[in-house]
């Protein structure tokens, strides 16, 4: 017995039981999605709902790709997310490093202004941004979907926090030897920042992949839609085709889930740099 009047084995059983229950609740919808996506059309519209496909089939997936153009949406999502990631990582890293390590006039003022702007929700900018991109002819183009994600305050902040730990001597020595700032950046700073670059890339990719409202507004042309937008409109037209919609969800969710599982250490670390230590 411990001081709470509960035998140790019971406390252990309660904690682990609750952990298992919570894990079941978090994973059950995802596992069921997978199970239903492998069922025959119409099989899931039954009571009680089947938990497992009677004879698993990839029919829903082949339907999605052959008739619903899922391949196109998948490609659009990959294209938009990859473009956002590459550009955002480069621009945010340059700026984050500058705010951390390069003294320039007005640096603190600009940085404070950026932090203050963090509280403004992106949706406030959406109406004028739409009109602006319309003027520039970027509505219904990949560029229109990519443009607002090309740089971000959070990304700059993340890099700045991390870059501050680079020792000044590491940058001063090549400066004395006459190396240019760009060379120092690419040869010394970038390698030193590698761990946070992985984190930043993952944040950017996940953010772009999962984004919904902006692609919904800017990509009304069906051939350009990203997976979430396409899935939302498909699910409005095919309310009854549960099996096919679950397959669509699998295609949308699995790439980011795998990416997270592969790189979760970086992601969780970045989450903490961006919040607690802020």
């Amino acid at each position, binding site marked *: 017995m411990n001081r709470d009047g509960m035998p140790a084995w019971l406390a252990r059983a309660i904690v682990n039981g609750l952990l298992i229950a919570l894990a079941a609740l978090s994973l059950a919808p995802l596992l069921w999605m997978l199970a239903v996506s492998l069922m025959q059309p119409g099989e899931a519209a039954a009571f009680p*709902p089947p938990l497992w496909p009677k004879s698993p089939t990839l029919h829903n997936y082949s339907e999605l790709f052959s008739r619903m153009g899922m391949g196109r949406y998948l490609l659009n999502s990959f294209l938009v997310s990859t473009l956002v990631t590459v550009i955002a990582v480069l621009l945010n890293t340059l700026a984050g490093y500058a705010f951390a390590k390069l003294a320039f006039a007005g640096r603190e003022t600009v940085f404070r202004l950026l932090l203050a702007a963090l509280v403004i929700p992106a949706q406030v900018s959406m109406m004028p941004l739409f009109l602006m991109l319309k003027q520039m002819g970027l509505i219904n183009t990949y560029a229109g979907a990519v443009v607002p994600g090309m740089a971000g305050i959070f990304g700059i902040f993340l890099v700045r926090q991390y870059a501050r730990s680079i020792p000044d001597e590491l940058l001063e020595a090549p400066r004395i030897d006459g190396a240019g700032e760009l060379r120092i950046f690419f040869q010394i700073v970038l390698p030193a920042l590698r761990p946070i670059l992985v984190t930043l890339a993952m944040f950017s990719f996940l953010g772009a992949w*999962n984004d919904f409202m902006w692609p919904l507004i800017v990509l009304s042309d069906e051939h350009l839609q990203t*997976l979430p937008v396409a899935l939302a409109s498909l699910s409005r037209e095919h309310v009854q085709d549960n099996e096919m919609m*679950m397959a669509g969800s699998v295609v949308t969710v699995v790439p980011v889930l795998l990416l997270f599982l592969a790189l979760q250490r970086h992601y969780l670390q970045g989450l903490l740099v961006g919040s607690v230590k802020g």
Partner: protein
Amino acid sequence: MKPSTAGWMFAAPALTVIGVFFGLPVLAALALSLTDFDIYSLAHIENLRFVGFDNYLNLLRNPLFWKALGNTLYFVVVGVPLSIAVSLGAALLLNSKLGAFKPFFRTAFFAPVVTTVVAVAVIWRYLLHTRYGLINWGLSALGIDPVDWLGDPHWAMPSIILFAVWKNFGYNMIIFLAGLQAIPEDLYEAARIDGASASRQFRHITLPILGPVLLMVSILTLAGYFQLFAEPYVMTQGGPLQSTVSVLYLMYEEGFKWWNLGNASAVAFLLFVLMTATTSALMWLARRKGIE
């Protein structure tokens, strides 16, 4: 190139993007919200007129705006505390010395966070299906009649809250976990020697030390929950009886369905003001209670 010049050169590309595609539009939105920009102005800009605060006044007279505001506040007031409580509970479980397989559980709890909201909303719409959903099947095993979760105005918002808590609790959990791990073990040791129970330890050690983390998590979660949009868009389309029309859902429909962009900008600004006021109030309250 001198380091000071280099500083501006390095920061300029990102600052330009943020300035042109975010800063400028935010300022323009304020101007836009004072005009009657609609589908006619979209065709010919000469049709644009300055209307002052008419958009704002019309919104305050529009019952649907109040409905949307009420729905959003419902989502925030019930959803945020519930979400934080589940996050904290999960973090306490993961932090307990008694638990096993923690890396697995941590990943399992976090998995919903990285999923695409539209895709998992489609799953939940099916889980909540009146006739074929797993949730009603589970309730029927307990002898409870089927509930029309997304079709009954009383249940639609609670269903969306349930979904949002499931989707988001892992995020705050990670932050809480880091906060809990930073609490020195000897504090608990000392309390145990003095005979303090687990619940007293939680109230007098854990919660006060976690105060600043709790404040930050609350502000982040509030800001996120005020921006409710994709969930009602996919699960209920604002219905039934407009019970899940959120402020941003209203903004989207006003702006990009009816092309009343001036009106939509006013909606966005009112939401921004509301968010700022709420988070400022929370910070003020926290400061008065001595949490920094």
